[in-house]
C-alpha cells in the first residue's frame, strides 16, 4: 500500500499550479470538490475498460499468433456477444451520466441571496473589479484595476504569470455572486481551485456563484484568447 500511496502522490495544499503537477488543484469550494469526485467516478470506469480491453488485446495477440494459429477463423457473426457489448457500455454510460447531470444542474442553481456581488470586467489585458453593494446612493462603487505583475518585477516566492498588483478580496464561507463581462473582446474569468470559469462577453452579463470554504490565496488566468498578452 505504501508503494500505491507513493504512486498516487499526495500534494500538500495546492491552490496554484505546481511543477510536474498531474492532478487537479485542491478544491476550495463544494463545486470543485464535486468536479473532482465526478472525475474520480468516471476514472474508475476508464481504468476498468482500459484494463479489460488491454487484456483482451494481449490475449488475442497471444492466442492467435500466426505460428500458434496458422489458419485464421472466419467468424462473421456472434449475436449474443454483440448484444452484450452493446448493452454493457450503455449501462456504464448510464452510471456516468447520473452523477454528471446531478453536478451540472447543481452548478446552474442560482443563489438567491448572496452576501456580496462583485463585478469582473475584462479588458485587454487586465481585469477591473467593482464592489457596488455597500455604497450609499451618491457614492462611487469601490473600483480598481488588477494587472498581472510582469516577470521582471516579481519578488522572491511570487508566482510567475499568476500574481497581480491588486487582488480581489472576497469573504470566505459566504455565498458570493460574480458578474462577469468584458469591455472589449472575449475573455474568461477562471480560478481552478474554486472550480469556476465564466466567459466575459462584451455586451453581456454572465453570472456565477461561489462559496469559498477556506481562507487562502487562489490563482487563475484568463481562459479565452484575447490578444497578444492573453493569460
Amino acid at each position, binding site marked *: 500500500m505504501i508503494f*500505491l500511496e507513493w504512486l498516487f502522490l499526495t500534494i500538500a495544499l495546492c491552490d496554484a499550479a505546481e511543477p510536474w503537477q498531474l492532478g487537479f488543484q485542491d*478544491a476550495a469550494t463544494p463545486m470543485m470538490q464535486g468536479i473532482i469526485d465526478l472525475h*474520480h467516478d468516471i476514472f474508475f470506469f476508464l481504468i476498468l475498460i482500459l*484494463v479489460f480491453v488491454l487484456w*483482451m488485446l494481449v490475449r488475442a495477440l497471444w*492466442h492467435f499468433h500466426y505460428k500458434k*494459429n496458422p489458419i485464421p477463423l472466419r467468424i462473421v457473426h456472434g449475436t449474443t456477444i454483440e448484444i452484450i457489448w452493446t448493452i454493457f457500455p450503455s449501462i456504464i454510460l448510464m452510471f456516468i451520466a447520473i452523477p454528471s447531470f446531478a453536478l451540472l444542474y447543481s452548478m446552474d442553481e442560482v443563489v438567491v441571496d448572496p452576501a456580496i456581488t462583485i463585478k469582473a470586467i475584462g479588458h485587454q489585458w487586465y481585469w477591473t473589479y467593482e464592489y457596488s453593494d455597500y455604497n450609499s446612493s451618491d457614492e462611487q462603487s469601490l473600483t480598481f484595476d488588477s494587472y498581472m505583475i510582469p516577470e521582471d518585477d516579481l519578488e522572491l516566492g511570487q508566482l510567475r504569470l499568476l500574481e497581480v498588483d491588486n487582488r480581489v478580496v472576497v469573504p470566505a464561507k459566504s455565498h458570493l455572486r460574480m458578474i462577469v463581462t468584458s469591455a472589449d473582446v472575449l475573455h474568461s474569468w477562471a480560478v481552478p481551485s474554486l472550480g469556476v470559469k465564466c466567459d466575459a462577453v462584451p455586451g453581456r452579463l454572465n453570472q456565477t456563484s461561489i462559496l469559498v470554504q*477556506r*481562507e487562502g490565496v487562489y490563482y487563475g488566468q484568463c481562459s479565452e484568447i484575447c490578444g497578444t498578452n492573453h493569460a
Partner: protein
Amino acid sequence: MAAHRIAHVAYTGPSIIKEIFYGMTLGLLAGGVWKTHHWNEQRKTKAFYDLLEKGEISVVVAEE
C-alpha cells in the same frame, strides 16, 4: 517405437467466456485500487475540514 500411440493434445483455442471473465476481474481489481485511493483522499479532505471547523488547525498565518 511407440510414437504413433502418443496422444497429442489438440489445441482447442481460447475460451472467450473465460477470457472475458479474467479481463473483467482484472479490470475490477484495478478499478478497486483507484476507488480505494479516491476514498482515502475523500477521508483526508473531510478530516481536514473537520479539524478546520473545530479550530484545531488554521489556514491563516498569525500576524506578528
